[in-house]
């Protein structure tokens, strides 16, 4: 990449009213959106790694039930005691790891990375604002997140271990399990929700109030639109889960019966509760959040993907307006599809029809977005750098994930597929080779803005190809397993239902299906190795990477590239004026093949 020579000179930024701050106020208690973004990013990457490790242990247990975990077995026993006696993952421990893997990945890794890190770092820059609207609220949001994370993490080490009832925490099971893990989970969730709410208020207010002069709504980069809608999803969908969390906490701590029905029996005995509660109510409140939450997982990724596509095809996004309207529709509809996760809870046909219909309707805007992004590639002279490779893989991977969602959206096919590995494969295709790839792309793409250096292209490509292959090896077999009837969340991976155990059982799992577990295990190990180049590349490049050579190494049009590198406190030396839309690439007759948004005509 050649250093750009665009027309806008950077005035040197004077640090007049921002005198040098000490270490603590500069890196730990900072109110600067960029520092907070990086804090979010770093913490979230740690949790991503941790969640991944939990999954590796679980995959071992599924593939080789009852055998000690190699290498880390003794460590598990030292840390967790009886739960991992002799280095063997007990059923309780498996349940804990499963529940915490889901929770950590969704609430502590992906959302903080996609929304907290990328959103924080980029949204104010892209709209030409000096910071978030409420910098101190922003800092509080990060602190609540850390606090929630710490509580979740420490719950592994309390007697009885962490929560065991799945990331969905369905009662009565979640309440009936006698250990305190669930209490910690609920307390952690209330903090994480508070963090997200503060973040959401801040993002929305920032986009509404702090757009630079000339930055009209239809000149916002698509990334900002995606984050804006994400903010609304978090703002309005999370409170019902917060309410539900408080109610379940009451059930757990004050022995109320919000979710405990009359006549509840635990371990064969009538539970000593007042009863009269409604277990399904939890599911409604949970999914009222958790369906919008899946869009929280995907929308920021779509935003990142659009930015990188426009930049590397060197042409405007195809159908910017359709993208914007599609993402708004998507956000709106995502609030009224939630009960498609509950078809098997005995819901009537009328209400099921309603939710099937809305589920099918919501796939239309998803398809519009994906189509626009695909068409954007058409006729471009594409630069295949690492970010672009990840983005190019995102498109079909998200496609697979989305299309496999359709059979889940109809109750008659979902009755067969619900709670099987098919569902696991469906959403992992969207989140893992989908969202996580987009996040990797974003890291490679914006790294030079934050550090002034490029990440290694060679190791980036190694990372990409290895990840792509192993991701597919992991998740592709799960579709087959699920369709064969293998249920999720079984500590023995379904061995009890295999034809090896019960030879003539109808619908028993064949040795072939069971054997896939072993392939998946080694693919997961492979995926772990595939991340090594990334981790080294990342840390090495911070100080030793190739200098970016300019503030705008990718020759991009959006405002974040029109600042000094890294952007100083306050971002812009003078208020930027915006004269054009976000994707003016290859404008005929223009001297360069990109025209920054703040370049006057």
């Amino acid at each position: 990449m050649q250093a750009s020579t665009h027309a806008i000179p950077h005035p040197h930024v004077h640090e007049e009213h921002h005198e040098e701050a000490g270490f603590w106020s500069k890196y730990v208690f900072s109110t600067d959106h960029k520092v907070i973004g990086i804090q979010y990013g770093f913490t979230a990457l740690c949790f991503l790694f941790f969640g991944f490790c939990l999954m590796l242990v679980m995959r071992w247990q599924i593939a080789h039930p009852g055998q000690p975990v190699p290498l880390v077995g003794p460590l598990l026993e030292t840390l967790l005691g009886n739960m991992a006696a002799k280095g063997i993952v007990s059923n309780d421990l498996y349940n804990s790891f499963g529940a915490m893997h889901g929770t950590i990945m969704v609430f502590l890794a992906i959302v903080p990375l996609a929304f907290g890190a990328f959103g924080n770092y980029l949204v104010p820059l892209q709209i030409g604002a000096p910071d978030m609207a409420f910098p101190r609220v922003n800092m509080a949001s990060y602190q609540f997140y850390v606090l929630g994370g710490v509580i979740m993490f420490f719950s592994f080490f309390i007697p009885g271990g962490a929560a065991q009832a799945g990331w969905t925490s369905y009662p009565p099971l979640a309440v009936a399990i006698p250990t305190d893990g669930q209490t910690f989970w609920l307390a952690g969730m209330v903090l994480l929700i508070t963090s997200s709410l503060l973040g959401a208020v801040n993002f929305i207010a920032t986009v509404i109030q702090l757009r630079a002069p000339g930055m009209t709504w239809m000149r916002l980069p698509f990334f900002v639109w995606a984050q804006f809608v994400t903010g609304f999803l978090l703002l309005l969908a999370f409170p019902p889960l917060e309410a539900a969390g408080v109610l379940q906490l009451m059930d757990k701590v004050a022995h109320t019966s919000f979710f405990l029905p009359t006549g509840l029996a635990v371990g064969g005995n009538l539970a000593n509760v007042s009863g009269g509660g409604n277990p399904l109510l939890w599911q409604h409140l949970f999914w009222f959040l958790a369906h919008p939450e899946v869009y929280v997982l995907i929308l920021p990724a779509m935003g990142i993907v659009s930015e990188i596509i426009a930049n590397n095809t060197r042409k405007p996004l195809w159908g910017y307006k359709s993208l914007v309207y599609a993402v708004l529709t998507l956000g709106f509809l995502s609030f009224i599809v939630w009960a498609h996760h509950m078809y098997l809870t005995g819901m009537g046909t009328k209400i099921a029809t309603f939710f099937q219909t809305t589920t099918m309707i919501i796939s239309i805007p998803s398809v519009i977005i994906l189509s626009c992004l695909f068409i954007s590639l058409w006729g471009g002279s594409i630069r295949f750098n690492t970010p672009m490779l990840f983005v190019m893989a995102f498109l079909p991977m998200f496609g697979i994930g989305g299309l496999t969602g359709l059979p889940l959206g109809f109750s008659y096919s979902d009755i067969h597929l619900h709670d099987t590995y098919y569902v696991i494969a469906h959403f992992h295709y969207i989140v893992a080779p989908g969202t996580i790839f987009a996040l990797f792309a974003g890291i490679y793409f914006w790294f030079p803005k934050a550090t002034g250096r490029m990440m290694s292209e060679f190791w980036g490509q190694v990372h990409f190809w290895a990840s792509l292959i192993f991701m597919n090896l992991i998740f592709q077999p799960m579709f087959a397993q699920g369709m064969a009837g293998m249920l999720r969340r079984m500590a023995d991976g379904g061995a009890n239902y295999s034809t090896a155990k019960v030879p003539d059982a109808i619908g028993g799992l064949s040795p072939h299906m069971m054997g896939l577990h072993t392939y998946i295990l080694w693919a997961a190990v492979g995926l772990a190795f595939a991340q090594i180049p990334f981790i080294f590349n990342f840390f090495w490049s911070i100080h030793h990477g190739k200098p970016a050579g300019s503030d705008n190494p990718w020759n991009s049009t959006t405002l974040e590239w029109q600042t000094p590198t890294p952007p100083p406190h306050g971002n812009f030396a003078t208020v930027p004026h915006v004269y054009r839309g976000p994707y003016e690439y290859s404008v005929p007759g223009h001297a360069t093949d990109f025209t920054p948004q703040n370049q006057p005509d």
Partner: protein
Amino acid sequence: MDIPYTVEARPDTGLYNAKVGIWLFLASEVMLFGALFSTYILLRVGAPEGFWPHGWLNIPVGTVNTLVLITSSITTVMAWASLKMNQFGRFKFFHACTLCLALTFVGIKSYEYHDKFMHYEITLKDGRIADGHLVKRTADQVVISGHYVEDRKELFDLRAGGPPHEHTEITIPQAQIKKMENYGPWHTTYLAIYFTLTGLHALHVIGGAIVIGFLWGPGSKLWKTDPDRFTNRIEISGLFWHFVDLVWIFLFPVLYLL
């Protein structure tokens, strides 16, 4: 570059930042209480015939507390209006009233909670149920001021018009007691939702009072240096306060009267 529109309104939206922020926050609060009200409805609709309590709460006390909260809302508006009219002394007076009223509200609420925690339902081994307020409890007996019922159902509808019952001191030997439980949140789903809704509401009252207390005390120094900004802060905290009042306007009939 400094953050714009912290005091003056942005021309195209006509709003300053904190105004947008507080309304977004209140929107999320609407969803929070919305979920809790849905819970209330579902629990109530799902209760077996005759087992949803009526008349368990003291209506005069609840009415007084409603009036207290409404009054605190008008003093909040007046405090803000005083600043708009440049009368700092009146502002101080009105918000002092707001704070006193907030304390009164919380005080009355804790009295009501205390009353519930002292109220016991005691199932005897012979199947009778004694119900009343605890007077004394020793190692071998329990004294309550209340009455006996044969059928638990009689305890549920206590609205005026029902058969009046005498309250007398009842002494029950510990040996006869099968189960003794006070009217805490664990007692019935009605009390569960009552404690949760009012508890969460009370936390909002306390939170709001802390903010208003800060702005009334140390925070009011800002009036001298940046009066417009200070007035905005009072407006924002007031919006929150009115919302808390608004929630109570629904809680009161739903929990006390219906």
